[in-house]
């Protein structure tokens, strides 16, 4: 993170997004900060309920009551976009920041052709003639690897497979050449073989259109495929950040270690697959201090208070009392 240039594309500062619920407040995102440089790629990894999707929705300004961003800033190109009104944020959504959802089967409207929907995405932000919009759409579909785009542009979503539809979603997201592409579990709903194709495509597109990528996933393997930096989230907090190689080769936080140990690909054949004991704590009653404390094999008395960001000595950040405080 220290290697980030002076002006990051996206800087999330001490973001707190809370949801009022019956019986209390759910602190879905509880003080997270990270930077993303232009053209860079960052993966946010975490289990269900870790706050990773709420983070992406907060950046997009899509938090609706009872949810609310209660503190922190989302700086995009030097401007705080967390407090913008609907009209202002709309000019950013789809133009500068795009979000691709998990499930391509339902994210396209079944009653319009895919071409119509890509054209809509284009025309939401650019004044284009019908002819120009159609030509641009065909070239976008070609870019995301859809065969014979001149024909497919007039087809309805039900005639396409999940992988094809995810390609269409990517075409829609990239239509206005955004500086930031947020992918929320982009491959979770797809077959394994299609997953690999889509990851290859995203990597290829990143180089072609030079967009920064924020990848939200529960699968650290996908982050390894696509990202340089990684943020590990748990219970609405950041546990560890660093480069992907650092974090996966030499995890510092006990949670990261446990997460990596439970990955099938890292376990030798015949060996029992590790699981993390216990369960994610009730979001209404997060333990004080480190949220991983109840499940942590190395927990001790100090863990009842918040460790804050700490530096294990190689420039990355770990929120754990096992390491020296950052100076």
């Amino acid at each position, binding site marked *: 993170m220290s290697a980030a240039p002076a002006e990051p594309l996206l800087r999330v500062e001490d973001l707190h997004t809370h949801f009022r619920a019956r019986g209390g407040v759910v602190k879905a995102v509880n003080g997270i900060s990270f930077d993303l440089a232009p053209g860079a790629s960052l993966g946010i990894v975490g289990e269900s309920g870790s706050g990773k999707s709420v983070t992406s929705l907060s950046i997009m300004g899509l938090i609706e009551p009872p949810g609310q961003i209660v503190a922190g800033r989302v700086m995009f190109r030097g401007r705080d976009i967390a407090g913008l009104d*609907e009209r202002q944020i709309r*000019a950013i959504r*789809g133009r500068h920041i795009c979000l691709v959802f998990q499930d391509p089967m339902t*994210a396209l409207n079944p009653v*319009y052709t895919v071409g119509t929907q890509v054209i809509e995405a284009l025309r939401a932000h650019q004044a284009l003639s*019908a002819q120009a919009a*159609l030509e641009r759409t065909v070239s976008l579909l070609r870019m995301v690897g859809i065969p014979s785009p001149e024909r497919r542009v007039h087809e309805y979503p039900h005639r396409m497979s999940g992988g094809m539809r995810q390609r269409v979603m990517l075409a*829609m997201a990239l239509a206005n050449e955004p500086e930031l592409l947020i992918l929320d579990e982009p491959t979770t709903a797809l077959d394994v073989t299609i997953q690999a194709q889509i990851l290859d495509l995203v990597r290829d597109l990143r180089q072609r259109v030079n967009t920064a990528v924020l990848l939200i996933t529960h699968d650290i393997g996908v982050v390894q495929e696509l990202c340089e930096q990684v943020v590990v989230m748990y219970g609405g907090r950041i546990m560890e950040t660093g480069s992907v190689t650092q974090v996966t080769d030499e995890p510092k936080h006990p949670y990261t270690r446990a997460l990596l140990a439970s990955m099938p690909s890292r376990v030798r054949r015949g060996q029992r697959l590790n699981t993390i004991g216990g369960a994610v704590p009730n979001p209404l009653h997060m333990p004080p201090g480190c949220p991983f404390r109840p499940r942590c094999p190395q927990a001790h008395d100090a863990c009842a208070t918040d460790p804050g960001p700490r530096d294990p000595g190689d420039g990355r950040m770990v929120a754990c009392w096992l390491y020296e405080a950052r100076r």
Partner: protein
Amino acid sequence: MSAQATPDPMPVAPSDALDGIAHAAPAHDFLRRALRHRSFAAGLGICLIITLILVAAPLLAHLNPDAQDPLATFAPPSAAHLMGTDEFGRDMFARVVVGGRTTVLACLGVVVLGGVVGSTIGLIAGFFGGALGFAIMRMVDLLLAFPGILLALAVSAILGPGLVNGVIAIAAILVPVYARLVEGAAVEVRHLPYVDAATTLGASSRWIILRHVLPNVSPGIIVLTTTWLGIAALWIAALGFIGLGVQPPTPEWGAILSDGQNYITIAWWITVFPGMFLALFVVGVNLIGDGLRDELDPTLSRR
């Protein structure tokens, strides 16, 4: 724009891209399927015949519904007067045809006015939800709690008698009905992934409502409209019958029925013909509605 040099195997017609919007399912396909539906075909037939009579008859023969003939009062149906004459010797055929135009146009006006206002309210309440949606829907509940005819009577008592006021009064009954239906459907559609996806692409609320929510809700609106077209015809007639609708001497089915009831024992034709037309029209419209409901919303027909 595109860098490829190979000729396109399929010529790309630019207008197609936008034409495709309206043609979600080809209209002629839908019509063919609907016509196979017996009650739809029968209802359509009845309504077409009535429409034909109402439109064509005045073009073929000069019809004056107000011309009185003191020498031919209460004349039974004959070649000269197809449907007989009333107490002033006015030709009943002319009165039924001209009065039918009034009734049918008025009930169309009712569903258009009530449907547009009610659907708009329902879309706004359902899409935005929150305190605004809650407030709107509680007012709708309040209106729904009133017996419909009481509401119509109250409105026309405030506005005064007359055809336009009658249409407004009956449309007022329809507004909460439409609002309730559309709100429910809009809430359901509101958080479909593709609606969220449109939001993330920077589309405005108005655009999303018109492009993604309304088309999803429209089958319900169409079915409700056909159902209420018949009911509206009855209510327009009812208002005419109790004297709050069209004022004499303008003919209107309900008003004619009201006049004719005094003479029903000596001149059945004054009430039977307009009553028959009204009943046929309501039946025809309802049959169309049944057919459309089966075609547009298959989940409703399987009971």
